[in-house]
């Protein structure tokens, strides 16, 4: 004779696959309150619960497309801000470069015992810094582009500029 455990497995198979209840299971359900309760719990659940859930979630109809719009705008604003930061970084680098270049130039003038190769290299760097500083207008996109090209040419601050893109 089957135990309640076995009958409940049969009930589950019925619920899963829609197989018909066997006469033996029907007889058992008539006698056993626990198995009947098990059967009733899951058998009626679909229609009743779905209906109840629809009622419960009716107020969650407020859709959030407008929020998607807002978030998309935020992303765009962030991207714009990133470009501004990149420009500011470029400007800052130029300022630092100009200042350090000036310092180096003064040093070259004052001190004569540097390695000639290093001096030559640094002189070129300093000259470039001064050249580029004359071209820079921080608010102008073309100047940023010039600065960007220059930074790439001399292999400087690539890491800082990263994937800096011009609009």
């Amino acid at each position, binding site marked *: 004779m089957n135990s309640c455990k076995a009958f409940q497995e049969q009930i*589950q198979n019925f619920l899963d696959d829609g197989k018909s209840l066997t006469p033996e299971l029907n007889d058992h359900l008539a006698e056993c309150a626990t198995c009947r*309760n098990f059967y009733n719990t899951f058998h009626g659940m679909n229609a009743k619960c779905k209906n109840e859930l629809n009622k419960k979630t009716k107020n969650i109809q407020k859709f959030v497309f407008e929020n998607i719009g807002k978030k998309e705008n935020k992303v765009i604003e962030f991207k714009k801000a990133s470009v501004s930061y990149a420009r500011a970084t470029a400007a800052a680098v130029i300022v630092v470069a100009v200042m350090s270049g000036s310092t180096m130039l003064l040093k070259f003038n004052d001190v004569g015992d540097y390695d000639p190769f290093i001096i030559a290299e640094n002189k070129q760097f300093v000259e470039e810094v001064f050249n580029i500083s004359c071209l820079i207008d921080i608010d102008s996109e073309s100047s940023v582009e010039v600065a960007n090209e220059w930074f790439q040419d001399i292999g400087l601050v690539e890491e800082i500029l990263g994937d800096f893109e011009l609009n």
Partner: protein
Amino acid sequence: MLSDIKLIEQFNNGDNKAFEKLIKLYDQDVNRMLYVMLNGNSDDINDVKQNVLISLFSSLKKFRGDSSFKTYLYRFVKNKAIDYIRRNSMENSKLLSIFYIKNQYVESPEKKFIEEEANDEFYRHLFRLKEYNKMIIFFKDIEGKSIDEISSIVNRKPGTVKSDLHRARKKFHKILSEAGYEFM
């Protein structure tokens, strides 16, 4: 009515309205699922729903049509909900959920109160199950999905889903029985 695939095509061609139409088709399905997975907490539901929509908006291009869009959407919502639950340690949410249930009927008429209290009691018991168990009971016994469909959503073999489901039902029935709850 346009098919899901057609709407996805239109969206991928730049028609954002098609996305709205597509999502609205499954709005209630998503709501029901999130209600069960997030223990009926409306703040959590709205948070996850927003995450789902925003992520889906940018990743729908990746949909290859290997399954139906509805299955894809369920899988997407499931992943977002589970991420959210993990991130936010649902203990707080469970407390909020009980608070929410206890407070939302303060002004309801007595009859409605009793009726809804009983339904809420049922869901409160359902919420006591672990996320996975809750989810498979939701899909099979509330949504009426087939074992194969659930298997595709939860990414487990049908045989495994079936035995998981049997165990989950027994656990749920035990919880209900201990609480003296009878499903009429």
